């Protein structure tokens, strides 16, 4: 099965000379349809850098990032933005909702931005809100909702329009354990329905929702375990530079 996300020997170096910092060193990493992969590691291990590169929000210093068979380096800025709005969904620790828009408007925003007709966008947004169990809050504004409800909207926005790659960075944030678990359940359900998911977390309890757990330290994959596709054994090589 083709990987939805494929990082090939990706390195990311910030600065140069004496201030040079290797955030990722030749990391190869894949996520397949139906698979949720957790990335764990201490602060500064490169977890968030990996997610930023996977989502096309930053470019690798060397190596390549492929999403649904497309090398992100082959896309111009507009192409990458389009890819982000149609194929990739993000869930952040901070929900990053727009306060002046209702729940439904927040969710349909990525569709509006790629020129989807308003009525169709609204229908898809309502479908996504139903999926996360808060269709009845569609016309409320974010500040009228609890943290758990806001994160559900953020998840609905991340999955709206059948996006196939879900990237989540500490998505349970400050939510209490029970509400946080609901968030993981929703991401898990989306992966069970065929999306590929990458969950960055420093909490083992959250990583346990994944099929595969990858450990990063100092920008290198030091260990990984869990069910893996036969052709995707990860290389755990050291530095490239």
């Amino acid at each position: 099965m083709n990987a939805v996300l494929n990082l090939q020997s990706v390195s990311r170096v910030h600065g140069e000379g004496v201030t040079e910092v290797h955030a990722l060193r030749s990391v190869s990493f894949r996520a397949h349809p139906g698979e949720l992969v957790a990335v764990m590691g201490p602060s500064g291990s490169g977890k968030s850098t990996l997610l930023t590169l996977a989502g096309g929000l930053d470019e690798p210093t060397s190596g390549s990032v492929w999403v649904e068979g497309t090398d992100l380096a082959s896309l111009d800025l507009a192409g990458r933005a389009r890819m982000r709005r149609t194929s990739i969904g993000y869930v952040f620790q901070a929900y990053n909702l727009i306060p002046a828009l209702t729940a439904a408007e927040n969710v349909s925003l990525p569709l509006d931005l790629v020129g989807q007709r308003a009525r169709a966008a609204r229908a898809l947004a309502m479908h996504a809100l139903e999926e996360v169990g808060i269709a009845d809050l569609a016309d409320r504004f974010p500040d009228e909702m609890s943290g758990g409800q806001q994160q559900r909207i953020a998840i609905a926005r991340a999955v709206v329009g059948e996006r196939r790659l879900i990237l989540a960075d500490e998505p349970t944030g400050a939510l209490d354990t029970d509400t946080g678990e609901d968030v993981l359940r929703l991401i898990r359900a989306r992966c069970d329905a065929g999306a590929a998911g990458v969950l960055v977390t420093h909490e083992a309890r959250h990583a346990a929702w994944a099929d595969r757990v990858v450990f990063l330290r100092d920008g290198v994959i030091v260990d990984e375990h869990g069910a893996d596709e036969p052709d995707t054994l990860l290389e755990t090589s050291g530095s490239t530079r």
Partner: protein
Amino acid sequence: MSIRQAMLALLEQGPMYGYQLRSEFEQRTGETWPLNIGQVYTTLARLERDGLVEVVTDAESGDSGDGDRAHVSYRATPAGLEEVAAWFATPVPRTQPPRDELAIKLAIAVTLPGVDVAAIIQRQRSATISAMQDYTRLKRTGRAANPDAPADLAWSLVLDSLVFDAEAEVRWLDHCEARLRRAASEKARVRPSVDAPAPSSQEVVR
């Protein structure tokens, strides 16, 4: 031992025979701590000896029975019910922590030269997370996923307890790892090796 009190507490619901008690216990705990039936009857015999349960005849318990000793049921006596109340009212003691093989293993390992403690930590973390994945799978697929009956909710809470225990272990391992790395770097700073190359400036921040 908690099995004794747990069995006694289950008898608050009404008289039961041994197999019933075992089944009620495992409904709630999902065979995490399997009870063999011999253990159940031994415990019941001790409870009876101590005056905390009493045998109920079939006629009394409403069972139709088929003659001699179809089923021997037990019910809690007033003294037994008092013991149950006291059990619920008293916190579980934490003064004598159970022996923890992992803590002992690491406590020994860090003092021995030539033991790769980091590798022990990583292997353990991997194994513990793997166990957490199994518990989590049970939580999201089995009867714990949509607990309708109180016993299913009880089972999902037992699974949570196993997950939180394992999580505490992983957090402790993370902590050990960070402490050991810091200790090693402090040691290197205080006593730099004469022929070692100058330290590299590749401190990775993110």
